[in-house]
């Protein structure tokens, strides 16, 4: 069988071909060799530029041509190896060769695709290896970009969160002033019944506003969100107004709380974030309105331990259920719902449910989901119970008669003048001898001059905080009772055990009870 091939076609099929005569002198050189080894010239002996390598060792070309043995050559003048076969060609031989990349890379090799035949699979291999390296390099760059972006988002979130916290705190202070002064109005006898009713509406509305601002303040203090013993029913009740606001006007939010004595060890803001995510998801599943039921219950179940350090076996959990009457999920969506970055919303991040699952697992619990298309969805979060001995929350302080001050001396420190004025009037009306101070410095000056039974101080004030003032006062006047008041709840580390804390806007009945109880206890320093 004889084939004819043009030189142009030969150069295309075997760009690294060599032709030798019977004396093994070069009489034809392929374009890839001409480009890469310019010293190689027609007429040169083959072995001046190439060495036979491989197995079988050095068979004569006629033998290799007859038997069809593969041959391999190594260039003596450049880093190049060639592989192929020998074809007898009249009185000489055609070495139909391809370049064999030694390190299977194109980096720093000067190789080109045209150095290879059009069907040489080496090209695809080289491209894939190089593509893989390039993609890995890009993946590293993208990972850095994503991390930078994540950090930027976190920084922005923290700034916004802090700003929201400051605004909420100030707003809460204004609500506190409204509350105190409406209490002043009610304390007098000048109002008609209709007017009293209007003042009650003002009080109730400011209380609802205050619940929302307190939630905002809690969510904005995320930095030191360590685990503390929490009653989830109480937490949910405290933030119910906030959840209702998030749910929106077309959705009813109902709470059915059935775990009043169960305590759990969780970070307060972490659990609030989870509940917020679940309420947002439920809201988004009901674009035309509906109902969200947020319920709790204590259940003893056996869950697969989410961490290897946790024991297996049945145990008690607070089961939080957030259920909606929305569009529900198909089986496919349900299977993927907890996957990070999976979202069915056009601009959804896909981290809401994933973060709920991660949080529940970190706390030693679990999260699961039950839904059918068109039949709403229920998300369950299980948090291990740390004790069942908690006291059911009560919102009703013990009644303390007015005029119960008995001449006790109270130093009131409040930087909001209208709040200070209202507090002084109310306490004086109760029979206390009251010294007002607008700053910590004024309070210190008064404490230097006069012994006081109680220091009632705001926490967040310009120049010096109420916490520092309380610390100073406790050392200056051992035995003084300390009552802190603020819109945000200081951490346990900030408050001493013997100090009392009351949240703003102040519940006057609760404040009366607190002062009354404090003054009927032994002074703190004496109880040691």
């Amino acid at each position, binding site marked *: 069988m004889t084939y004819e091939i043009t030189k142009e076609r030969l150069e295309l099929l075997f760009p690294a071909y060599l032709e030798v005569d019977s004396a093994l002198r070069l009489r034809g050189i392929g374009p890839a060799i001409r480009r890469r080894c310019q010293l190689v010239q027609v007429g040169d002996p083959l072995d001046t530029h190439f060495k036979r390598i491989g197995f079988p060792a050095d068979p004569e070309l006629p033998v290799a041509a007859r038997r069809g043995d593969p041959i391999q050559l190594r260039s003596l003048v450049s880093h190049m190896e060639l592989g192929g076969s020998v074809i007898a060609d009249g009185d000489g031989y055609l070495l139909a060769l391809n370049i064999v990349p030694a390190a299977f890379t194109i980096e720093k090799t000067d190789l080109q695709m045209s150095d290879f035949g059009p069907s040489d699979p080496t090209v695809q291999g080289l491209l894939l290896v190089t593509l893989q390296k390039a993609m890995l390099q890009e993946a590293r760059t*993208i990972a850095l970009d994503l991390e930078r972006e994540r950090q930027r988002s976190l920084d922005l979130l923290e700034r916004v969160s802090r700003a929201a916290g400051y605004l909420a705190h100030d707003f809460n202070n204004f609500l506190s002033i409204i509350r105190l002064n409406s209490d002043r109005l009610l304390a007098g006898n000048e109002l008609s019944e209709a007017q009293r009713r209007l003042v009650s509406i003002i009080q109730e509305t400011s209380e609802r506003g205050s619940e929302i601002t307190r939630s905002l303040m809690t969510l904005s203090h995320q930095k030191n969100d360590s685990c503390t013993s929490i009653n989830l029913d109480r937490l949910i009740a405290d933030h119910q107004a906030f959840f209702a606001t998030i749910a929106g006007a077309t959705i009813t939010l109902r709470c059915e709380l059935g775990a009043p004595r169960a305590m759990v060890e969780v970070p307060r803001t972490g659990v609030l974030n989870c509940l917020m995510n679940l309420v947002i998801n439920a809201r988004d599943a009901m674009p035309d309105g509906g109902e969200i039921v947020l319920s709790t219950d204590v259940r003893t179940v056996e869950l697969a331990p989410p961490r290897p350090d946790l024991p297996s076996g049945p145990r008690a959990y607070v089961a939080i259920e957030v259920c909606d009457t929305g569009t529900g999920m198909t089986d496919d969506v349900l299977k993927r719902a907890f996957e990070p970055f999976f979202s069915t919303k056009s601009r959804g991040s896909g981290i809401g449910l994933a973060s709920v699952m991660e949080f529940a697992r970190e706390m030693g619990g679990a999260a699961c989901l039950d839904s059918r298309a068109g039949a709403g969805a229920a998300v369950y979060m299980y948090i291990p119970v740390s004790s069942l001995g908690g006291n059911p929350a009560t919102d009703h302080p013990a009644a303390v008669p007015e005029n119960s001050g008995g001449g006790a001396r109270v130093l009131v420190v409040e930087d909001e003048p209208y709040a200070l004025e209202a507090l002084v009037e109310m306490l004086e009306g109760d029979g206390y001898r009251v010294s007002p101070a607008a700053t910590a410095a004024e309070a210190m000056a008064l404490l230097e001059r006069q012994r006081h039974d109680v220091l009632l101080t705001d926490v967040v004030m310009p120049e010096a905080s109420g916490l520092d003032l309380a610390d100073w006062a406790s050392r200056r006047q051992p035995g003084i009772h300390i009552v802190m008041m603020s819109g945000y709840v200081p951490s346990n580390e900030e408050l001493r055990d013997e100090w009392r804390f009351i949240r703003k806007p102040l519940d006057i009945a609760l404040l009366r009870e607190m002062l009354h109880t404090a003054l009927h206890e032994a002074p703190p320093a004496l109880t040691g």
Partner: protein
Amino acid sequence: MYGMIHRGIRAMLIEERGEAEWDALEREIGIGPAELVSQSVYDDALTLELVAAVARRLELPIEACLDRFGRYWVRFVDRGAYADIMDFTGRDLVSFIQNLDRMHQAVLAAMPEAKVPSFSVVDRQDGALRVKYQSERTGLEPLVVGLLHGLLDRFGLVGAVQPVPSRGNSAEFVVSYQQNHDL
């Protein structure tokens, strides 16, 4: 299209108008780093939305923006992780275009969801080429004009790219060129 195109579009806008302009664009069309992952394949509608937003910011008609991006794309790929592949594909205009399909075959093997175009040299004369372009996508001819201009720049050539009438789902371009003696 795959995310590397999005990264190229971003790099072009940042180079021309600065990072703040890109940040504003991200906010405008609601995208972020998750839409810029090179190896992910995104809906063409998103890519076209991105091109339209860049065109508005560069005050260009969409066709002119695609042309400019085509030119930029060659430079962008040439300086990144894929520079070795560009060199391997060809060291002159003709062999580069002739080898593009083989290079795209490797891309397809690595990213099976990608839709890659096909290029071939259908006629070749001294200083002129007729290039055939085929793609499942339509409307990207201005991008191809830009790409061919970008390749002329890459190989130190100056010239013109002229679309010529063609049949079916392919487009043809005559590329006339000469060495750029200013380089």
